[in-house]
């Protein structure tokens, strides 16, 4: 089993765990962590699967660099929103959505 394949498989598990975390966990900071695990999983699959013969491929590597920057941008925005929500309501979980 090649290095690339091992990490592609690891990535698949991380992705699934991350999505399960975002769906199941109510605490917002923890959800942000889960989202980041999900992103890391997708990145590992992208590079690992492309390099499953253990030959370096620069194209997916460049794509992952782009992806990491996008992920940190999204994380920072999510944190800003969580902090704002905490300032306004004192809560770290999403309130129920009501039409009133």
């Amino acid at each position, binding site marked *: 089993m090649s290095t690339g394949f091992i990490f*592609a498989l690891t990535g698949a598990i991380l*992705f699934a765990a*991350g*999505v399960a975390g*975002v769906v199941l966990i109510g605490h*917002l900071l923890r*959800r942000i962590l889960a*989202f980041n695990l*999900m*992103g890391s*999983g*997708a*990145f590992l*699959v*992208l590079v690992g*699967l*492309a390099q*499953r013969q253990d030959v370096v491929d620069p*194209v*997916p590597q460049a*794509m992952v660099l*782009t*992806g990491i920057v*996008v992920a940190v*941008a*999204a994380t920072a*925005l*999510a944190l800003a*929103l*969580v902090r*704002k*929500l905490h300032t*306004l*309501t004192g809560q770290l979980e*999403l*309130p129920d*959505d009501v*039409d*009133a």
Partner: protein
Amino acid sequence: MLEPLFDPLVWLILLPLTWAMLAFVLGPGRGAWLAIAGLATQCWLAFVLAQTVGAGGVANHVVGGWGAPLGIDLAVDGLSAAMLLLTQAVALPLAIYARSYFKSDDPAGTWFWPLMGFLIAGLNALFVSADLFNLYVTLELVGLAAVGLVAAGGGAQQVAAALRYLFATLVGSGAYLLGVALIYGAYGTVSISTLLPLVTNDTPLLVWIAGGLMVSGLMLKTALFPFHFWLPPAHGGAPAPVSALLSALVVKASFYLILRLWLGPLQTVLPAFAWLLAMLGAAAIFWGSWQAIRAVKLKRLIAYSTVAQLGYLFLIFPLLAGHGALEAGVMQIFAHGLAKAGMFAAAGVLIKATGQDTVAGLAGAVERLPVTMFAFGLAGMTLMGLPPSSGFLAKWLIIEAALAQGYWIIAVVVLAGGLMAAVYVLRVLRQAFLLTPASATLTPVPRMLEWSAFVLAAASVLLGLRGVELMQLLGAMA
């Protein structure tokens, strides 16, 4: 052949990026005129591009001169040209509307112009891209801009809605990204034109999983039932110009991408899910309409109507193998885009004037704000599908395609959806026709707000009379 320096395709991306950046540098609350001038130019560019595509088939731009699969290609066919046209045509009146809507001290308007610029740039870049990874970046550009617009300057409800929306959109694009990763693993390329000849009938299981991931992610972003949970609070809670942009354009972008994958690189995989998507679409029509009928708040009602109207788009998937379904889908995108932008804009006027966001508070609105209520009525006509509106044309085309292929059940769903739309639209109109209560006070509203809402709503009706040109444009497919 157009001069590369003046290629409208590229400038539709560069121009909004430029004015968004300049509006940011100009500072808080500035940049309205910059945006309006930029959008006016973009309208013209989209029109020129549509004419070129209508005459010559497909417009291409090879970024960097490398060509796919090494570089990134941009391509515009009839479908992309139509989406570009709709985006600029909806955004320009909404920009004029927003300039009057946001007062100088409104915290929601502080960074509205650069955020809107990035949103429009992301949408245009999405509609022209022919590279699956590049499409991912444009999806994130659109998603983060939309979340920023929802959250801007808002209270707890709005921030919570934005967070819900953010997690939905991030999980959606994450699933899409994993799909792209699997496609790259299977074929070694993410360029749509390079993938097309590689996709054969003995598709590997990995590509099936990739297709499932990408479409599920995009369904979440399109708010297809049962993934619609994030849409009503986000679209119902944002300022009116933002709601209008999101409902008219943003959800359509991810739908467009599903359609693009369906007609392109995933054509051997996705048709297996056609009836599943159509069933969810039908469920969306009934559930969204029912919630709209019951809604207390006016903007909530319109947001649930969006959930329902998006359902019609998914009815076309079982019909795509036959004739006329694509035209029906695009007509529905246009009809709902223009009508819903007009309706949210009108609702913004009503809320500003009456000072409350409830259906009950509308009593007497017809007397006091006739133009706005007329706009609301015209937009409602399109949503119900009354002739001669474009909504009628869209529904007619869906029914025609369904009956031609023997799927009468789809025709029944469309007719039932139209009736339910009539119930929630008439519910608002009936309330507005009541006598003004003696206690009601009305804040005066700028004329520009009323008229830009009217222009959008009227366009949604008038398009029904000029649908042929749009159909011809769609004939120019890759």
